[in-house]
């Protein structure tokens, strides 16, 4: 079985069969179609989050647990900094395009500041050291938010029109946000792919991700490539943030934690450092979690996450290196 799974063609064939069967099963019934859209949207959400983590790992071997807290900061930037019980929209009150631009810009700044203050000085240490530093950074950011905004949950209703349901077909009605999540992810994936393959900096980044030392010996600027990775990771975090807050309308200083847990699992089952892997892993996590919530019998539905984790363990037992492992020749210098 494992031999078969290690065959690349077999894996793609298997994936294609699963996707095709899934779609056929789904489109024949309105309820199942609705589940399909919901699970794709959940999968997209985790794919985005996983990409932000996978990209930094790929380039820097950094397992960035502060990523979830970048997402959290992106959310809090929507409202006026105050510990008052009722929150007032700040950036969140701008018109939609400006909200997006401001939050993306804000999160990029946070990501670059994290790089400059924490990760750059630690760049020549070991990956475990950087990972621990990312934990510490995450706690600092969370406590910063508690100091400024207080520890209570904060409400932030942005883009209320996204929560309206739209009819996709006879008897299939889903919130617009689900479609937007899938669309946003698809667009960001296309942009990222174009960047990595069609621009000089993108190609340099892929080269550096595989063999940083060699890339530098060819004149690739380490600071540029790493800063770019943080910019992209930060902007992905901002979209995760906006989608999350649009969906729930409420934020807590701990909101990054469940996101990072699932996103991190997604990058691991996808294959650490592989971008295709991050997307595949995010989809697996998101889709299986939604599908299980819908098909499990009522009595055990509350434990659906346990089943998701069981799937994760099964995947890791079959393929410890992840579903789509990264190519990476050597350690960075």
């Amino acid at each position, binding site marked *: 079985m494992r031999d078969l799974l290690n065959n690349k063609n077999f894996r793609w064939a298997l994936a294609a069969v699963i996707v095709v069967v899934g779609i056929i099963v789904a489109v024949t019934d309105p309820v199942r179609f609705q589940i399909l859209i919901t699970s794709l949207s959940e999968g997209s959400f985790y794919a985005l989050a996983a990409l932000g983590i996978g990209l930094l790992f790929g380039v820097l071997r950094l397992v960035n647990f502060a990523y979830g807290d970048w997402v959290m900061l992106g959310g809090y930037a929507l409202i006026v900094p105050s510990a008052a019980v009722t929150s007032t929209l700040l950036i969140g009150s701008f018109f939609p395009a400006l909200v997006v631009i401001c939050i993306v810009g804000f999160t990029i700044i946070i990501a670059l500041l994290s790089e400059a203050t924490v990760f750059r000085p630690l760049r020549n240490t070991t990956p475990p050291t950087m990972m621990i530093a990312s934990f510490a950074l995450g706690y600092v950011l969370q406590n910063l938010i508690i100091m400024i905004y207080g520890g209570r949950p904060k409400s932030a209703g942005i883009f209320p029109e996204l929560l309206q349901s739209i009819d996709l077909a006879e008897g299939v009605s889903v919130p617009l946000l689900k479609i937007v999540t899938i669309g946003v992810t698809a667009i960001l994936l296309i942009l990222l792919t174009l960047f990595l393959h069609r621009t000089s900096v993108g*190609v340099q980044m*892929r080269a550096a991700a*595989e063999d940083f030392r060699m890339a*530098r*010996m*060819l*004149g*690739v600027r380490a600071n540029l490539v790493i800063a770019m990775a943080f910019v992209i990771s930060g902007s992905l975090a901002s979209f995760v943030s906006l989608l999350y807050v649009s969906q729930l309308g409420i934020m807590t200083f701990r909101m990054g934690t469940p996101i990072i847990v699932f996103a991190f699992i997604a990058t691991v089952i996808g294959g650490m450092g592989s971008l295709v892997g991050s997307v595949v892993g995010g989809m697996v996590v998101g889709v299986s979690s939604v599908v299980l919530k819908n098909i499990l019998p009522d009595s055990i539905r509350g434990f659906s996450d346990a089943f998701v984790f069981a799937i994760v363990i099964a995947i890791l037992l079959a393929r410890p290196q992840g579903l789509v492992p990264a190519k990476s020749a050597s350690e960075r210098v």
Partner: protein
Amino acid sequence: MTEPLLHIDDITVHYSRLAAIRGVSISVNEGEIVCVVGPNGAGKSTTLLTVSGILNPTSGNVMFAGNRINGMRPENVARLGISQVPEGRHVFTALTVEENLRVGAAMRKDKAQVNKDVKWVMDLFPILAERRRQSAGKLSGGEQQMLVIARALLTNPKIMTIDEPSLGLAPNIVDRVYEVLTTLRKERGLTLLIVEQSSERALKAADRIYVLRSGQIQLEGSAADLQDGEEVRKAYFGFSEGTEHLGEVEF
């Protein structure tokens, strides 16, 4: 006497506490081919990595065109015109052949000349043109060696350093590699610092030779003076008598 293009001046390099090379001095004049030969663990790669700014000498300096370059970042050393083809080749296997070449040219601003140079290296190594859209990981060892030389050439270097270009390659491929290297010097005036374990080919290609063993330079001289190989052999192995029983060793 004009000053050498590259002057490695009395450098000592440590890996944590252990000195890998001690007091090594090598100079390479513009347009020269210089070979450093030495057995396993002699410190050849350490020397080249120090030139490229990957390692820092604990004492001594690396001078390039009269300027001190030790302590500079590797990317800035490369941008000065020092390009290294390191041991083990290091192709980017996730990239296509053409993308590998583009990374070599990424730092250059003269884009029109870059396009010409890409064509030029593809003429030099026709296999690269044939495989340009393929993943570089799919190339054979010899093809990968050609790719990394071509990639280094695209940085438009003033001097190229190469670490064991013949490692793991069939003799006819090695011949081809050396043929290209000597042509490059002849036609483009490229300066070369080549490191090898075997001295035979180095003696043929080089203008001057250094023998490095146990982290120190044992012998230096012009290839013409050392042509018969006896002195090189003594310096390489560190003893003079009993060389007959080394008859089977391939130089």
